[in-house]
C-alpha cells in the first residue's frame, strides 16, 4: 500500500503521535490517559511508518527490538511494585517522592508502573503488527 498522501502525512504525524503518547502517559496520573493508551498511540505511530515505508523503516527508527521493550516494561512494572515491599509496606503500595518536577508532577511508583505498561503495550502491539506484516511482505 504505497500512498503518497499517507507517506507525506506520516512524516508530520509521526513525531506528533509520539509526543502525544508521552503526554497521555503523564496525564494519566490524575486525568484520563495512562500507560495503556499512551503505548497504543505510540504503537500506531510506528505502525503508520511500517505501512508507508515498510517494516524495515519502522525497525530502524525503533530504539530497541519489541521484545526488549516488553522485557524492560515488565521489569519497570515489577520494580514499581517492589518499592512498596522495600519500604516495608504491602506489595504495590503507591509511594510518592516529595519533590515536584515539571510535566511529571510528583514522581512516584504509579508513574513508574505506567511507564512499564507503556513500554510493554508498545512492545506487544509492535511485535504482533510487525511480525504479521513481515509475513505478508515476504
Amino acid at each position, binding site marked *: 500500500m504505497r500512498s503518497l498522501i499517507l507517506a507525506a502525512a506520516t512524516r508530520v504525524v509521526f513525531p506528533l503521535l509520539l509526543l502525544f503518547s508521552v503526554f497521555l502517559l503523564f496525564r494519566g496520573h490524575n486525568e484520563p490517559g495512562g500507560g495503556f493508551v499512551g503505548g497504543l498511540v505510540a504503537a500506531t505511530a510506528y505502525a503508520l511508518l511500517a505501512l508507508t515505508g515498510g517494516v524495515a523503516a519502522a525497525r530502524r527508527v525503533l530504539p530497541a527490538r519489541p*521484545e526488549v521493550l516488553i522485557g524492560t516494561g515488565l521489569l519497570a512494572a*515489577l520494580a514499581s511494585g517492589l518499592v512498596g515491599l522495600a519500604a516495608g*509496606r*504491602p506489595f504495590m503500595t503507591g509511594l510518592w517522592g516529595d519533590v515536584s518536577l515539571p510535566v511529571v508532577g510528583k514522581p512516584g511508583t504509579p508513574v513508574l508502573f505506567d511507564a512499564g505498561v507503556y513500554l510493554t503495550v508498545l512492545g506487544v502491539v509492535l511485535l504482533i503488527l510487525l511480525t504479521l506484516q513481515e509475513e505478508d511482505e515476504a
Partner: protein
Amino acid sequence: MNTLLVLPLLVPLATAAATILLARSPRAVRTASFAGAAASLGAAVALLGATRDGTILVTQAGAWEAPFGISLVADRFAAAMVLVAALLLAAVVVSSIRGLDGARERAGYHPLLHVLSMGVSGAFLTGDLFNLYVWFEVMLMSSFVLVSLGGERAQLQGALKYVVLNLVSSALFLAGAGLLYGSIGTLNMAGAAVALRELPAQGLPSVVASLFLLAFGIKAAAFPLFFWLPASYHTPPMPVAALFAGLLTKVGVYALVRVLTLVFVRDTAFTGPLLLAVAALTMVTGVLGAMAQGDVRKVLSFHIVSQIGYMLMGLGLGTRLALAGTVFYVLHHIVVKANLFLVAGAMRRAGGSFSLEKLGSLLARSPLLAAAFLVPAVSLAGLPPLSGFWAKYLLVRAGLEAGNGTIVAVALAVSLLTLFSMTKIWNEAFWKPAPAGAGAAPAPLSAAERASLLGPVLVLGAITVAIGLGAGVLYRFADAAAAQLLDPELYVRAVLGARGGGT
C-alpha cells in the same frame, strides 16, 4: 510474611522479563529459566513452611483494605498447590532442554512458561473473584500461545478448539462475577462469603453459582464440557502437554473447591448431588474414551478427564474425609499425570512414534524408561503402595461413610478400567516385539538426552513412590487442609479481620 505471598508471582514475572531480554543467547535463556524455576520452587517451599501450622497468610495488594482492594491469601491448600506447580515447572524446564526443538525455544517458549506459572500461582493465591478472572486470562493467554507455538497443522486445529472453549468459559465467569457484584457489591471472596449469608440461598446466588460451576467446569474438563481437552492436549510438544495436563485443569478444580467451600456454601443440597452426578459421568466417559484410543497421548488425555471425576467426587461428598481425599488426589495427580506425559515424550524419542501400533519392544530397548513408565502408570490406576492408591482409598472410604454406594462402585469400576488401559500401553509399547516394517529403531538415547528426558521423570516418579510409602504425612496434611476449607470462618477472619493492610 507479606513477601512470601508475592514471591510466587514476582519470581516468575522477573524470570519472564529476564528470559525475554536475554533472548539472543539460548544458553543464557535456559540458565535463567532454570534459575527462575528453582527460585520459584524455593519460594513455594517457604510459603508452605509458613502455612503448615494452619496460619492463613494475607496481604492486601497496594495497601488497599479488603474488601475494597485485592487480597492475596494462602492457606494450606493454596500453598501446597503453589508448591506442586513450581515443582512441575522445574521438571518441565529441564525436560524441555531435549524434549523441544530449537525453533520453538527461540520463539519465546521460556518467557511464556514462566508467565503461565505466574498465572497459575496467582489463581491459587488470589482472594478476589475478579482477580481470579484476570489470573485465568494470564494463564490462558500464555497457554494459547504455548499450545499453538510451532504452528503445525494439527496443533493449530487443536489450539482453535482449546481457545474457543476457554473463551466461552471466561465470558461465563465474567458474567457471573458481574451479577454477583450487582447483588452484593463486592467480589472479595471473604467479603462475598459474608454478604451472601444475608441473602436467601436460592435466587440470584444460585444463578451465579451455576455460572461459576459451568465456567470452572469447562476449565476443569468435567462432563459434559470436556471434549476440548482430548481434541487439543495431544498436539503440542510433550513438555508443554505435561504442564497443561498437570496444572491447567487442576486450576479449574481448585477454583471449584475454593468457591464451593468458601463463597457458595449454603446450597449444598443442590450442588452436592449435582457434582456427584457430574463426577460419575466424567469418570466413566473419560475412561471409556481412553480405552478406545490407539495413541499414547490421546489415551493419557482422556485419562485426565476421568481423573477429574475423582476430584469432583470428593467435593460433591463434601465431608472432611472426602475433601481431604480431593486435596490428596489433586496433589498426587498433578505429579503423576505430568510425569506420564513426560514419559510419553521419552517413548516417542526412544521408539519413534506415539502410536501404540507402531511402538514395541521398548522394555528391551530401555529398561529404565520402562520402569519410569510403570511407576506413574500403576499409581494412576491406583494400585498399592503408590500415591494413587491412597488417594482413591480416601475417596472410596468417604463415599462409603456417606452411604453413597453408587459413586463408590463407579469409582472402583473406573479404576479397574484405568488399570486395563495402562496395561494396554505396557503390552503394546513395552512388551510386544517391535512390529515388522516399522523401519530401523531410532538411535539409543545419548547421555544428555537421558538426563534431560528421564531425569525429571525419575524425580517425579520418586516423589510418587515417596507419597505412597509415606502416605501418612500427606494424609495428615490433606486432612488439616480439608478442615481449614470446611471452616470458611477462618478464612474470612484472616482476610477481613486483618484490616489495616500488611501484617
